[in-house]
């Protein structure tokens, strides 16, 4: 078999992450070729192996994106022998990733200082809601709370409405930033041979998404929630079309766009309130009303294509079925069809980007069953004999 050419080929990750943000980080690393070993136990299996009532999922998931590509081993970290085995796994890996509440890894005897003793050039990622330090570091949280603490939730919303809660995109954005920082730490290790502890607070990622508003706030200003409006562009927003719940997004950047929009729609206005970009900004609501009336009679999909042909920024507000049907995303490998004997064909998120040389990037294997890779990990990597493993299993260390 031809060896895979992936940018992170040869990197191994000991993956203790739970929930969504941490597992997405290690999933991204695995997509780019890292070998990622997911550590769970029968007593504390990953959430996807159980029903999730709050999301309306009444049984275990058959496919879990963020677990794809990962190897699975069982390890009951409540027992000292399991902790010792975890340390051997860390020593055999390049990166250790965890996303417990701060303090949990220390209680387990697996904190950075302890692990750096067995792996002097350890690169460790700790991902948490509020970070490893500071008065709020013990706070528990999920994606909507990250958005609330970080200010992104406050700044998002209709101008006259309440703040808006962020969902999984917030988790996964934290995970992507964590993957980036982890790679930077690996480069640092390559250069210096030294260990590094990356500390990512998901709420700070939410704050990074309002970095401009925070600059304003630091200057004593009180930034306001703009809704769908943009200070530089008018018309700008999301407009109804001739089909219910089929919306067209539109951003008119300059006078050229404004004229092209009218040309593409076969409309024209000589209203002086709309004669220049500055005039349209000053009469934002009126221009929205006019363009809204034009677009209400249009087919959104056809109009988006015509506007794009005229160089105007437009796109239909797509639901996931639209995305699943998109030949562009499939051509790029951003969407990948996956299947397995027990998993009917379905779509998953594929490669994060196209790499011209190390092009083997994306999903190589699907959701692992619990402990399916112990022959390789405990047998080949750590050199445990069958008898040793049976003994550890009988005493529920490997469990």
């Amino acid at each position, binding site marked *: 078999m031809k060896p895979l050419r992936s*940018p992170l080929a040869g990197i191994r990750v000991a993956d203790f992450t739970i929930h969504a943000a941490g597992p997405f980080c290690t999933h991204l690393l695995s997509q780019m070729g890292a070998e990622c070993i997911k550590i769970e136990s029968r007593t504390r299996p990953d959430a996807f192996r159980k029903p999730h009532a709050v999301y309306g999922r009444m049984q275990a998931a058959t496919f879990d994106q963020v677990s794809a590509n990962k190897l699975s081993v069982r390890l009951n970290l409540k027992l000292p022998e399991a902790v010792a085995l975890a340390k051997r796994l860390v020593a055999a890996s390049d990166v250790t990733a965890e996303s417990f509440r701060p303090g949990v890894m220390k209680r387990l005897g697996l904190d950075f200082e302890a692990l750096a003793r067995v792996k002097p050039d350890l690169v460790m990622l700790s991902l948490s809601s509020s970070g490893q330090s500071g008065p709020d570091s013990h*706070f528990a949280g999920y994606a909507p709370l990250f958005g609330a603490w970080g200010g992104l939730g406050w700044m998002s919303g209709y101008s006259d409405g309440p703040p808006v809660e962020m969902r999984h*995109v917030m988790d996964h954005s934290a995970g992507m930033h964590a993957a980036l920082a982890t790679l930077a730490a690996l*480069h640092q290790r390559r250069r210096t041979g030294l260990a590094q502890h990356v500390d990512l607070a998901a709420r700070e990622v939410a704050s990074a*998404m309002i970095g401009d508003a925070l600059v304003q706030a630091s200057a004593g200003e009180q930034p306001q929630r703009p809704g769908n409006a943009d200070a530089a562009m008018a018309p700008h927003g999301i407009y109804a079309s001739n089909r219910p719940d089929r919306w067209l997004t539109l951003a008119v950047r300059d006078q050229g766009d404004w004229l092209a929009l009218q040309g593409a729609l076969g409309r024209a206005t000589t209203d002086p309130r709309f004669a220049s970009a500055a005039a349209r900004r000053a009469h934002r609501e009126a221009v929205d009303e006019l363009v809204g009336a034009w677009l209400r009679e249009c087919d959104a999909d056809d109009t988006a294509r015509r506007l794009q042909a005229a160089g105007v920024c437009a*796109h239909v507000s797509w639901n996931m079925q639209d995305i699943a049907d998109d030949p562009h995303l499939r051509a790029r490998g951003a969407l990948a069809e996956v299947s397995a004997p027990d998993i009917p064909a379905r779509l998953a998120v594929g490669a*994060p980007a196209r*790499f011209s040389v190390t092009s083997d990037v994306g999903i190589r294997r699907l959701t692992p069953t619990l402990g399916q890779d112990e022959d390789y990990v405990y047998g080949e990597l750590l050199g445990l004999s069958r008898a040793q493993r049976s003994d550890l299993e009988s005493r529920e260390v490997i469990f």
Partner: protein
Amino acid sequence: MPSVDNQPLAGCRVIERSRSVAAAYAGKLLAAMGARVVLLEPEEGSALRRAPPWLEGSQESALFAYLSVGKRSSVCDLRTPQGQADFVLELGEADIFIDDTPLDERQACGLEPESLARRFPELVHVSVLPFGASGPKARWNAEEVNLLHAGGEGFLLPNGLSNELFPDRPPLKIYGHFSEYQGGSSAAMCALAAWWAVPAEGGQYVDVSVQDAVLAVGAFALQRLGDGSLEHRTTRSFRYGGVFRTLDGYLELLTLEDRQWLGLVELLGRPAWACEPALADPLERSRRGDAINQHIRDWMARHPTEHIVARAQQLGVPAAKYRTPEEVVRGEQERARGLFGPATLASGREVEVLVAPFQFRCTPLLRGGAVPALNEMSRETTA
């Protein structure tokens, strides 16, 4: 002690050509980790220098300040022989080149990946475009509002209380440049992955799409589609929990685990409705979500945010205040962690800028710096 030499990306040299937030954010993230990032700008300066929001008084771009602090600026017009010569010199010393020039303009600027790969075989060349550099829509144009909806998340917003209050309004974008930030984060991540492979594989071209990045962070909705559920903003609200109006503001509350639910019952003062035995079953709670939420809303509306949040945290109930930007900038947690650093704008005005949404505990990041004046590198050379 933080120093230039002990930063994670010390020694990494990056050239950035950006007109989009995505490409500029990729450069910002690398600069924050110690890379030397040179922003190549046209004569009139990057369009982002004029992008909103603008600071009152000086009218300087708060967005550009955020995205460019710590970078260097050099004017380089690739349509001139001098610009081309300067560019070749810069790239000859660079590890990573980040570029968001539209495809149709690349040939005229000498930015085609094949020719750059021949001349700079060790270079990591990262293209960042709204829909990527390949595929049938590679030449489509887009701004933030288009991209959030092209990636699927826009259609799903707002959910929860906002959607309940305004069910007939159009979907709502996330504040600012959320999609572009995902594209930028992805571009920086992929740049470092490709740079990692240079000793074994040499340089390469990396084609990043903002739409792909939005879809990637929205993977859960695609997973739900595979499970048979097409998500919609009207139905993807949490069965119970979410945004609540309090006596003096808003907070977010979410209980996913049994012990958190028990803490919530305690927080609410053990009311009779919550102690009903049937509600011990999480599936039953999920089924009765609307009724539960109504009870919680009634209670929240009578209590102040800080009181609720403090008590909730004691009881292990995940709850957070919806904080304003002013509260974030002044936040004790943020201050304790040094999230912000002092930045000097081109006008000399001092502001604070978020350093980076991650920390390196063994070698802390340098904080703050200057927002580069246009072409300050050249002025420095000639001075």
